């Protein structure tokens, strides 16, 4: 069934808006409801919207980075920001803050950078899982007889 043009156009329109919103959610998280998880989920929703509108293969090309790589990078990025404290002889992941806030973004410290790591992990994991699940029937189609049995039962849907 051909995908509805209306859905596709709206999806494309929403993409930049939602991504912007997700970054905003991430950065304001420390002071107002938001943060790494919520920002990450936002961005993931935006990408999954593309998947629903255009199908998984298109969604994979929306961002030219492998989502698995992004997830691994997120974990790595999140973990390394605990190390600076260790070098100063403090316990792992102790918060270290820059003296004055960066205009336009706000105070930056290891917790915020850790939150950015969380952000990328969430995007990478959620989107990759969605794409894996969506591509599954295309790569390994269900055995045919399964299909007949399905049609037999009058689908209420």
């Amino acid at each position, binding site marked *: 069934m051909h995908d509805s043009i209306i859905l596709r*156009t*709206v999806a*494309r329109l929403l993409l*930049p808006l939602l991504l*912007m919103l997700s970054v905003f959610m991430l950065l304001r998280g420390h002071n107002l409801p938001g943060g790494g998880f919520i920002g990450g989920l936002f961005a993931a929703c935006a990408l999954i919207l593309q998947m629903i509108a255009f199908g998984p293969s298109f969604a994979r*090309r929306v961002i030219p980075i492998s989502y698995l790589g992004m997830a691994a990078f997120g974990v790595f990025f999140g973990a390394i920001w605990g190390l600076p404290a260790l070098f100063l002889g403090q316990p792992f992941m102790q918060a270290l803050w820059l003296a004055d806030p960066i205009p336009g973004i706000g105070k930056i410290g290891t917790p915020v950078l850790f939150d950015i790591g969380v952000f990328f992990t969430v995007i990478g994991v959620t989107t990759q899982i969605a794409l894996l699940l969506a591509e599954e029937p295309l790569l390994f189609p269900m055995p045919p007889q399964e299909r007949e049995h399905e049609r037999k039962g009058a689908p209420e849907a």
Partner: protein
Amino acid sequence: MLVLNFVLAIVWMALQRSFSLVDFVVGFGLGFGIIALTQHVLRDLTPVVENGRGKGLGSYPLQTWRIFSLFAFALWSILKSSIEVAQIVVRPKLNIQPGIIAIPLDVRSDMGITLLANLITLTPGTVSLDMSTDRRTLYVHCIDIKDPDAVRDDIKQNFERRVIELFP
């Protein structure tokens, strides 16, 4: 694309609740990054200004006026027809003749079609059901069709005319 970038910068400033230059720079930078990252998705969302196909669309201020007039008209027609539908719902006896009508379209661009379809759906009483594969005809379900042709003309005159000015 540039327009989109500016829009994003403005959105960023609104979100940040501060309109300083620094916020604009940050907003624009972020917008630039996002558009660069996903530009092949956004490629043919032709913004109003750059579309030069025939019809000499006149200058930029005229376009902005048209946007606002479309916006105002939309709000007005939403209110009007929602009251109509409300009456239908409230009246104890339901005498409505719902049905699906086909409307030949002149508008071509994605944005145009989407805007038109959404406007039709938004005005209660009409829901755009589907678009023919060759994007020639739009099928709309109406809650109460006294005279099919009247409805078709009403939609084409009021909505399509205004939309086509913006997104041919």
